[in-house]
């Protein structure tokens, strides 16, 4: 054996895992902030704004994340804009997450029952107040389970950043494998680490979903059951 897996390799992997978590957080926070803008623009009363954001969403959803990464990391320097792997990964993932979360959240905002909008309107609230005080708080409840579920997608998709040289979990694994040459073992460990990050979040999302449907069932007026 060239070099058996030892504790320094494991530390190296954990270091990579931390970057995976870090990159996921950046993608979630950045993508979340822009995603909210996307969601609100998608329901804007101005047609042009709606069309432009819809095109953005379609463009991102119709393009592989890997290609978006290549465009930012290799494409932008060709245009004279040099960009570090971390920046390229952060920008690409943010754009990606914003498109998906924006669509998820738009659906959640629109699924708040129409009469709620009317009730708020008839109480003389302005459009912004209606959105902020009545609609968004309810939409957030609806949005929580699918948003938490989408965090799993974010974590898994950060692995693509390895191809632009971002030293996250997958890339650390590749490097270690190049020295110990035990691909099955190394990649199994990596898979296990991803799983240990994603599985609890996935379960959390399922639990939120169950709690929500319990609440929905409770709140149906008795005359309608």
């Amino acid at each position, binding site marked *: 054996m060239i070099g058996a897996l030892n504790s320094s390799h494991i530390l190296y992997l954990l270091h990579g895992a931390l970057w995976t978590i870090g990159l996921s957080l950046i993608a979630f926070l950045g993508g979340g902030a822009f995603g909210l803008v996307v969601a609100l623009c998608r329901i804007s009363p101005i047609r042009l704004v709606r069309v432009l954001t819809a095109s953005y969403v379609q463009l991102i959803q119709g393009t592989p994340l890997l290609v978006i990464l290549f465009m930012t990391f290799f494409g932008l320097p060709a245009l004279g804009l040099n960009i570090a792997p971390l920046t390229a990964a952060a920008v690409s993932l943010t754009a990606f997450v914003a498109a998906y979360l924006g669509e998820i959240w738009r659906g959640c905002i629109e699924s708040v029952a129409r009469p709620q909008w009317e009730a708020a309107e008839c109480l*003389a609230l302005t459009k912004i107040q209606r959105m902020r005080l009545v609609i968004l708080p309810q939409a957030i409840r609806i949005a929580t389970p699918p948003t938490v579920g989408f965090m799993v997608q974010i974590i898994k998709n950060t692995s693509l950043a390895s191809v632009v040289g971002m030293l996250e979990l997958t890339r650390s694994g590749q490097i270690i494998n190049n020295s110990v040459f035990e691909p099955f073992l190394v990649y199994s460990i990596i898979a296990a680490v991803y799983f240990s990050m994603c599985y609890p979040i996935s379960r959390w999302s399922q639990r939120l979903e169950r709690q929500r449907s319990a609440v929905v069932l409770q709140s149906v007026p008795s005359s309608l059951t």
Partner: protein
Amino acid sequence: MKHVVNQNAEAVVVLRNVHKSFGPHKVLDGVNLKVRRGQVTTIIGRSGSGKSTALRCIDHLEKVDSGEIEVCGRRVDDPNVDLKALRLDLGIVFQSYNLFPHLTVEENIMLAPCAAKGLDKTRARDLASEVLASVGLADKSNAYPEQLSGGQQQRVAIARSLAMQPQVMLFDEVTSALDPELTGEVLRVIEELAAGGMTMVIVTHEMAFARRVSDQIVFMHSGRVWEEGGADILENPQTSELKQFVRSAP
């Protein structure tokens, strides 16, 4: 005991020749209506006769195709109508209560006075307990809507509207989703409001209630005001449509 309405009081809600269609379907076909201050007007009629649509047009939830609507001297059909001012004058209660499920009863009531009228929290809370007491739910201020019965939710919805101190209250089939025993508690609250001199326009299917509470009964049919008058129009209907309606809905 019914209070006496001054028949010369100012008209606070006026509809003149109001037309409204949904696609090819004509819902309002020249509606005329006048509601004076302090008067209780009930609109009765079959489903699809346009009564709810007429009410929703008054609150600008639907835009009229033609005709005039005036609320407290303000033209609702004017494209530049000040909607906020209109909604400060009008309160509306819906069939499906439409309480905000994420807020407690008290917060439901405090929301609009704070947000739309700029009331401070302390005064809004006092106001909330006052209106809650008036609908008999003083002990429910910290409950969430889903913890209340339908009748209680509807009373909270009435209280929420009252807290805005509107000039006119609109009621859109507010007991239609309720069991008979819960209907009574909601109707009693409305009757108390009537006795207090609140101007109200009530769309309802409860004929006995309409007889008791109304200063003016409006029977709508095919998108028009078919007959109108005091409670006596139910005893002496002039048209065959109202005769049939009274027979089928005693």
